[in-house]
């Protein structure tokens, strides 16, 4: 794993010097700012039960579905297309280290983008000094959820990137996979057919993988190890599949 740090450092460096990172960050923060402003407008007209943090994190899936594939689609596809993967893999580096290094960098960028939204809450706190509007519990729970669930979401993006040498295809694959994971499980769980006894195992599985339920629990301050394990093991499995996907492509290149 000694090359993991070399690759991670290199990837982070490349992200820091690349203009696309800053464009992504500005777009992301602008978008989140609009959502935040919309929520606040809602709060100013009608009294609400929950703190704004709860409402804010409920919309986490919008940036996740569109931002994560954008962050990860380039990582492996681009190397394959340019042929630099060949030079990379003829050094004493394993495919696992390459995938992990790139994953680590993408995850760090994902975290730092979300950390930027902390500024929105800081501004709110600065100008209102209202403790209800800045309830620490849901806020920390929400960020913890983002950090834990991001492990899986970014891994899904990496898997999509390892499957195609075309960035656009990798991006679309990523969007579809994340949509299926976040919204698909939600919609399936809502179907009445699932309540049939035949589908009981499916229902149990859907409940276990119900991302919105996880968010709800985290926001209430409930950190269930089963949920953390779901994301951690899911990320691990997805990364293993990414490594395998990459190696299969090499075998048939």
């Amino acid at each position: 794993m000694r090359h993991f740090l070399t690759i991670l450092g290199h990837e982070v460096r490349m992200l820091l010097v690349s203009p696309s990172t800053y464009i992504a960050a500005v777009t992301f923060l602008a978008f989140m700012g609009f959502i935040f402003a919309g929520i606040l407008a809602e709060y100013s007209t009608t009294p609400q039960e929950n703190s704004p943090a709860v409402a804010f994190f409920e919309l986490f899936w919008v940036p996740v579905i569109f931002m994560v594939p954008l962050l990860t689609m380039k990582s492996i596809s681009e190397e394959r297309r340019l042929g630099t993967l060949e030079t990379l893999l003829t050094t004493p580096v394993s495919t696992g280290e390459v995938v992990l290094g790139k994953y680590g960098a993408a995850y760090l960028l994902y975290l730092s983008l979300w950390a930027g939204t902390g500024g929105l809450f800081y501004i709110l706190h600065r100008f209102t000094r209202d403790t209800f509007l800045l309830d620490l519990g849901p806020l920390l729970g929400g960020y913890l959820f983002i950090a834990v669930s991001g492990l899986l979401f970014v891994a899904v993006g990496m898997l999509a990137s390892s499957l195609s040498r075309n960035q656009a295809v990798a991006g679309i694959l990523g969007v579809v996979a994340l949509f299926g994971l976040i919204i698909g499980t939600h919609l399936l769980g809502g179907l009445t057919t699932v309540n049939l006894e035949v589908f009981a195992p499916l229902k149990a599985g859907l409940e276990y993988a119900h991302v919105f339920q996880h968010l709800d629990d985290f926001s209430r301050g409930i950190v269930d190890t089963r949920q953390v394990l779901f994301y951690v093991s899911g990320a691990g499995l997805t990364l293993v599949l990414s490594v395998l996907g990459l190696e299969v492509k090499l075998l048939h290149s």
Partner: protein
Amino acid sequence: MQVAPNMSDSPAAIAVSHLVKNYAGVTAVSNISFSVAQGEILGFLGPNGAGKSTTMRILTGFLPATAGTVEICGHSVATETAAVKRLIGYMPENNPLPEDMRVSEYLYYRGRLKEMSRRQLGPRIDELLELCDLKRVRHRIIGKLSKGFRQRIGIAEAILAEPPVIIMDEPTIGLDPHQILIVRDLIARLRGRMTVIISSHILPEIEMTCDRVLIINQGRVVAAGEPAALKRELLGHARYEVEVMAESADLAAVIATIEPSLEITAETTPDATGFRTFELSTHHESDFSEDLLRALASDERFRLRALSRANPTLEDVFLAATKRSWDVIDRAAPKPATAPPQP
């Protein structure tokens, strides 16, 4: 420093035996065997699609072979891939480089990946930048450099960690004559210290730098050996070019009187003034230029304009060897259709 016991009998730097590679039903490499001694420079020649790049990729451990074994300095590529990767420096075809890095930054990153220490890397990069004439561009972005610079960055990267085996797929492609000279010197400096395999289409280049040449076609080795020996084997000993106004039958009769093995191997159609160029060849080693000149000039039937003794180039060897292999392949092709001989 302790010398490993097996260093004394010094295993071949590269030993390839019965290598086969199939891609989705297409045989890219079919039963290739060769070995390269330590410190030797081997030229790898072949027409496009002959299987050169595939063979090189298998040597680096990037692609797995379908069958056969490859050993680099005694380590099997299939089972000890990690060890093999520490022993080679590889420059792939088309030399892919990251577009958005600076030259020195890239070399530093590659050095770290090749497990060089930070302290080692600084002076080594300076040395390489000097050696490859890259000092002027060390802080420039690679994507904005011309082909010649990019090519030399690829070469610098391949020899960065001073591995015992260097594999370069067409290192001189796209370089101007001055840069080719630099690369040639660079490769010549590696002679004896590192084992080098180069593939190239620039045949004089290979001839000047390589100790030995391996010509492959259709995934098979069709000729191997020192360039001079190959010329003798494939082309005969000497060729002459005569520009003369004559009938080929007359000329054939006259040259046969000079040396029986001398024969016409090619002739052109007469040009506007009626002269034709004949190509003569013989297996005899002595020089018949003077005899030819005297015989042709003194004969009334011939009007001689020019005569020269041609030095065959590697290009001729290459063409002859690949042509020969096409013949072999064409002849071999209908074989499976015939019934097997009865015992």
